[in-house]
């Protein structure tokens, strides 16, 4: 069991940059999807995505910018946001007491696919020398550590759409063990690229839109780009430096279905077990939970197995636990999803309002949950769960508590 304070919230998303704008937007039940214009998406089943049109990242110099894939830029923007929100200047501390833990699913594919094309068309000399340091999954971790002089225990997690939640749990455990004083933790993803969209498409999960989790007419998810980073420290550290505590990470569970290379176990037993582990580590009972921020991938098996898992653990109380998938508004941020949803859930606790699922029109008896639909619902949320699931049956569940 651990109880680690969240003292900084950084988010860069299609629904806004910065926690205040993001929070104002996701209460409204609007869609933040837009047509893809960066490349010709005509050949893809989905021609829309959650995209960030204007990114405020003045702290990144043009000289550095050309060496970075977008997923690193997004991670740097969210990290800056989180540290400012936490009132924390890491350069004033021993560099070995801070760490960075970031998840992503894809790596820096915009950079990589462009350079791979150049490799095959122009030969070796056509490839940018920066590709080597731009594309790989740990590049954002490296860039954030350089920027803020972070030299302590750090880690990149690649576990498909569960990456960010697993990274945040890892960070919380390392802080809990006293190996770090401060951790930046979250996820980043830049999937609006031809190759990344192709992979989502051939996986069978990509929707032409609208993205409608738990709807009987659902047809998959729509991708979104962005990053979210939280600052983690112990409550004692936060109090000593006079930092505001927004919430606590209190428990975590992760399991693997072990049934199929892409699809989840239809019965949802693996996810149910991950929920039980999260509740047990947080020392919560199912009746303590006031809100579940669902994965809501909007595939047939994804939604049904998630609803079954919730029903398995919560029994009849599943009728009374509000569930929503705010990502229906801004897209599935894949490896960053859990982090963005954690930020949204902490803001929901602070604001007393559950952000909704949008685009839901047709009730699915297989997904018989208390779904918060179309607009935010007022609620007193003391304890919540955030769910993130990846291809191949990765399940991750984080328990969160209001400060």
């Amino acid at each position, binding site marked *: 069991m651990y109880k680690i304070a969240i003292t900084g919230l950084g988010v860069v998303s299609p629904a806004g940059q910065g926690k205040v704008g993001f929070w104002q937007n996701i209460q409204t039940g609007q869609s933040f999807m837009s047509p893809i214009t960066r490349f010709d998406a005509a050949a893809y089943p989905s021609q829309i995505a959650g995209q960030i049109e204007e990114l405020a990242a003045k702290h990144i*110099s*043009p*000289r550095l910018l050309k*060496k970075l894939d977008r997923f690193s830029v997004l991670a740097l923007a969210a990290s800056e946001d989180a540290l400012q929100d936490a009132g924390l200047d890491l350069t004033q501390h021993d560099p070995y007491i801070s760490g960075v833990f970031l998840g992503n699913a894809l790596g820096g594919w915009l950079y990589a696919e462009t350079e791979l094309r150049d490799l095959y068309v122009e030969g070796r*000399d056509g490839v*940018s*020398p*920066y590709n*080597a*340091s731009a594309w790989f999954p740990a590049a954002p971790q490296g860039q954030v550590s350089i920027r803020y002089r972070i030299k302590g225990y750090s880690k990149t997690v690649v576990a498909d759409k569960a990456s960010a939640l697993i990274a945040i749990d890892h960070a919380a455990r390392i802080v809990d063990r006293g190996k770090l004083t401060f951790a930046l933790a979250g996820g980043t993803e830049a999937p609006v690229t031809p190759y990344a969209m192709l992979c989502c498409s051939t996986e069978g999960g990509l929707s032409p839109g609208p993205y409608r989790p738990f709807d009987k007419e659902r047809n998959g998810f729509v991708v979104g780009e962005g990053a979210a980073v939280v600052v983690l420290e112990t409550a004692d550290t936060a109090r000593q430096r006079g930092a505001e505590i927004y919430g606590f990470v209190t428990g975590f569970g992760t399991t693997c279905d072990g049934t199929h290379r892409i699809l989840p176990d239809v019965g949802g037993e693996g996810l149910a077990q991950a929920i039980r582990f999260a509740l047990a580590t947080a020392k919560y009972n199912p009746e303590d939970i006031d809100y579940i921020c669902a994965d809501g991938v909007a595939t047939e098996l994804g939604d049904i197995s998630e609803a079954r898992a919730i029903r398995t653990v919560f029994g009849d109380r599943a009728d009374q636990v509000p569930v929503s998938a705010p990502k229906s508004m801004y897209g599935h941020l894949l490896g960053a999803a859990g982090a963005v949803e954690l930020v949204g859930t902490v803001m929901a606790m602070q604001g007393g309002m559950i952000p909704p699922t949008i685009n839901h029109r047709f009730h699915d008896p297989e997904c018989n949950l208390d779904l918060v639909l179309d607009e935010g619902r007022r609620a007193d949320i003391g304890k919540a769960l955030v769910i993130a699931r990846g291809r191949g049956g990765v399940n991750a569940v984080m328990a969160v508590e209001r400060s």
Partner: protein
Amino acid sequence: MDVEARITDILVKSFHMEPDEITPEANLKTDLEMDSTELVELVIGLEQEFKVSLRDGELSNKQSVGDIVKIISDKLG
């Protein structure tokens, strides 16, 4: 434009350096903070600009801007 001015132009345009920091004495690594990957981009830029060929290792970021000007000038004869 002479060789030095053309090399300065490459450094400004490719690496967003300030023209006044590019002096003949400026060391590529310690003064201009160029790493090995930027050196590769510089080599490609010089080969295209001056239509010369540079061997692997012929340029190093231990050199100064003046050293690079001399190497290129010697190749141009």
